[in-house]
């Protein structure tokens, strides 16, 4: 579970987040929606400790992680798939996965096999350099690399970016499945509100750094004004 409390972040004079507060329960997907520059990525980076907040608290399972180093937050069970996936291109698929497993207390061979089973395409390409992977395969690898450490919390930053619609749909199904089987707390940042809301249980809408809506995904999806003003979804 993640609870964000009164969180503010400044970039120099620019306020990136203003007194943001919400809760993301365990075993559920919480979508974080909003336009470009709404502060979605900043929110995830602050949770991971890459950005230091000006004020506020971030509780992960009742433990405030503000001020803790990024690598230690990761070791506490927070998996973060960053914007642009963060696959290390110069390494092979397997090396990327091994990196993910290094900091966790898992049996490497078992964990690798499990991920290859979950994402079969990765098993086929395990010795390949990541620069040869397609966008969808990279997204799979990035997720597998986060999951291999058995995280309790998964932060996903725009996983659908640059993917074809069918690939996106499949990805969303995978995320929903994962959340259920692994009892994960998923924070899903998306610009593609429509596909995110389809699988999310809850949704938080950010606008210029502030929370403008926070509730059940179905309610947010049903709110005509929200959709028109903040999510850019044209009513069909």
């Amino acid at each position, binding site marked *: 579970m993640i609870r964000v409390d009164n969180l503010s972040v400044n970039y120099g004079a620019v306020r990136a987040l203003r007194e943001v507060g919400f809760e993301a329960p365990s075993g559920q997907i919480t979508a974080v929606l909003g336009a470009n520059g709404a502060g979605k990525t900043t929110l995830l980076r602050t949770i991971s400790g*890459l950005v230091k907040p000006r004020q506020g608290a971030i509780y992960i399972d009742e433990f405030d992680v503000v001020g803790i180093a*990024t*690598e230690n937050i*990761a*070791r506490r069970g927070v998996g973060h798939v960053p914007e642009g996936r963060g696959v290390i291109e*110069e390494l092979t698929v397997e090396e990327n996965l091994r990196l993910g497993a*290094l900091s966790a207390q898992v049996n490497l061979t078992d964990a690798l096999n499990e991920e290859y089973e979950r994402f079969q395409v990765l098993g086929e390409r395990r010795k390949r350099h990541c620069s040869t992977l397609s966008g969808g395969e990279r997204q799979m690898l990035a997720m597998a690399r986060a999951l291999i450490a058995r995280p309790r919390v998964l932060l996903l930053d725009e996983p659908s970016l640059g993917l074809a619609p069918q690939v996106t749909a499949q990805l969303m199904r995978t995320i929903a499945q994962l959340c259920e089987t692994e009892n994960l707390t998923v924070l899903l940042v998306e610009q593609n509100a429509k596909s995110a809301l389809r699988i999310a249980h809850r949704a938080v809408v950010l606008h210029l750094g502030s929370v403008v809506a926070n509730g059940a995904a179905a309610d947010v999806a049903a709110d005509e004004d929200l959709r028109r003003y903040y999510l850019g979804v044209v009513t069909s």
Partner: protein
Amino acid sequence: MSVFLSSSFIHNIFGGLATGVIYSLVALSLVIIWQSTHVLNFAQGAMAMFATYIGMTEIDRGVGYWWCVIISVAVGMILGGMTERVLIRPLYGKPEINPIVVMVGFLGVLEALASAIWTSTTRNITEPFSQVYYQDHGHLIFLSAFVIFQMVLAIGIMLLVAALFRFTKLGLQLRASALAPEVSRLLGIRVGRMLTIGWMLSAGVGAIAAVIVASGNFGLFPTNMDGIFVAGFIAAAIGGLESPMGAVAGGLLIGLAEQFILAYWSPNVAPLGGIIILVVALMVRPQGLFTKRMSRRV
């Protein structure tokens, strides 16, 4: 065969490779630091020199040669780690000129300190193997037990470093931290520690090079690594500063080139050998210096 081995051409190849492996070691140590922290360590030679002096004082106290090597390497590694922590860490994110200037200052301090403590007269570490060249039916062969030792040790260290980076967990973390520090941190890798370890490794490799130099004819004096550092830098630059293999190849190339200029052209211009090679390399393939980093930050 024996006449072939004693021909002057073969002599020069042995001579060139013997110095070349030293340059390769220094170049390799520069590449390790460059990859992890994007700092060109101008004090690399001086740090190695300093570590070797400390190892040598232990020899004076009656310790054997191999202990001297081990002590020098250990001191080198400690010095490298401390340098990263104290002098380099505060400068991450500052203009790239700042760490250069700091390391140049450190070079000056180390050389001045060394001549203050141990004077600037040349010393030799008693070499473990004979420097006398082998003979074959009265023909001199440009190989001695020491030259063979020098090459075997240098190549052994290079293979060891390669294996460490390629096959171990530590090597994987070192590579990842260098390639993508932020992503590595998100995966729980202690990147700060990896940078320190990278500097320690590099300084250790540099110390081995300095010990070999100090054991040979060249000897040990406070500025003895200056020229060797320059050659090592050129070797690393030819290889693109990012490629360990390129650095090793560059080192051998410069060693050979110097030897052949010395033998067939004029000993007077030998100091220019490295620069000529660097200039030619730049003219032929300017982007070779930048290898993969073709795009510039705007």
